[in-house]
């Protein structure tokens, strides 16, 4: 079973870029452009990690994170880390993303899952 990542962002291009980062066949990335799409999928399957954008139309990453299963580890991607202090996230990263850091984090969670 591959390591499953969900990513919600209202910017389609960022979802596209994100998917392209992971060429490893053991990592499956599923992206969502709005909250309702994400919710629908969450009813049937759970990711190993959930990445959330901070500012989205009418809502925010922290707001959504609080409504979702607390057992799913959530990561915030934001334009400005300074304005986010929320322990609902296991980690947060500033945009533009540092890909090495994100890959490291995924590796840590993957190790936990398969060990």
């Amino acid at each position, binding site marked *: 079973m591959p390591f499953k990542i969900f990513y919600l962002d209202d910017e389609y291009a960022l979802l596209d*870029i994100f998917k392209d980062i992971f060429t490893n066949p053991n990592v499956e990335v599923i992206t969502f452009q709005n909250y309702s799409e994400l919710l629908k999928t969450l009813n049937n399957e759970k990711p190993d990690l959930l990445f959330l954008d901070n500012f989205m139309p009418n809502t925010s990453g922290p707001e959504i994170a609080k409504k979702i299963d607390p057992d799913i580890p959530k990561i915030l991607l934001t334009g*400005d880390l300074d304005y986010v202090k929320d322990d609902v996230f296991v980690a947060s990263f500033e*945009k533009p*993303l540092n890909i090495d850091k994100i890959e490291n984090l995924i590796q840590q969670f993957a190790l936990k899952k398969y060990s």
Partner: protein
Amino acid sequence: MSEVSHYRILLIDDSKSFISGIKSLLSGHPFEVIGITSPKEALNTLETINPDIVITDLDMPSINGFELIRQIREKVHKKYYPIMVLSTRMENLVDISNSVDCGADAFSSKDNIRTSLVPQIKALIRLKQLHETAIKGKQLEAVQALIGTYKHEFGNSLAILLGMFRKLIKYNPSLKEDPSVASIQEALSRIDTTLKKLSKLREYKETDYSEKTKILKVG
């Protein structure tokens, strides 16, 4: 108020001897007194002199004290100069009231300046400092709000640019050899660094970019 700093007082009085009297009265204090006998000249040079406070007489030929204060308040908007009226007519309550209406902040009678002038000056300097601190705080708030907005708007666009660029190179490795590609990448990371610095801005200094433009000194 620190006694070490020097504060500049612009004193307007048509009597040269009164000006020198005040100068010697204040000589032991950290005040630099610039005396001008013509209210018109005072108006023209106020912003160049850029005093911490203004002290003016009421009875003067050509432009009287009321008119001078009114014109300062009407014409000078870049900075707030606290104004004190120093007059022999202070026993007249109508004068006090008129001075306030024209824009004065304090009043004193020439009769008791030996005891009351220095504390009044100190109070006015404090007023000016409070005013400047408040303005700076408001400006910083506005600057930060502006930066927050830009950072959010630019942050996503920049993330897309950098990400797409990386993708482009990944699928067209030969692009790596092209020097213009390296220049674009460098420029993009410069924008990224500047945006990050801007978002951490907690105080700011202006610096002259050209004669007409001021820019923020970042980091």
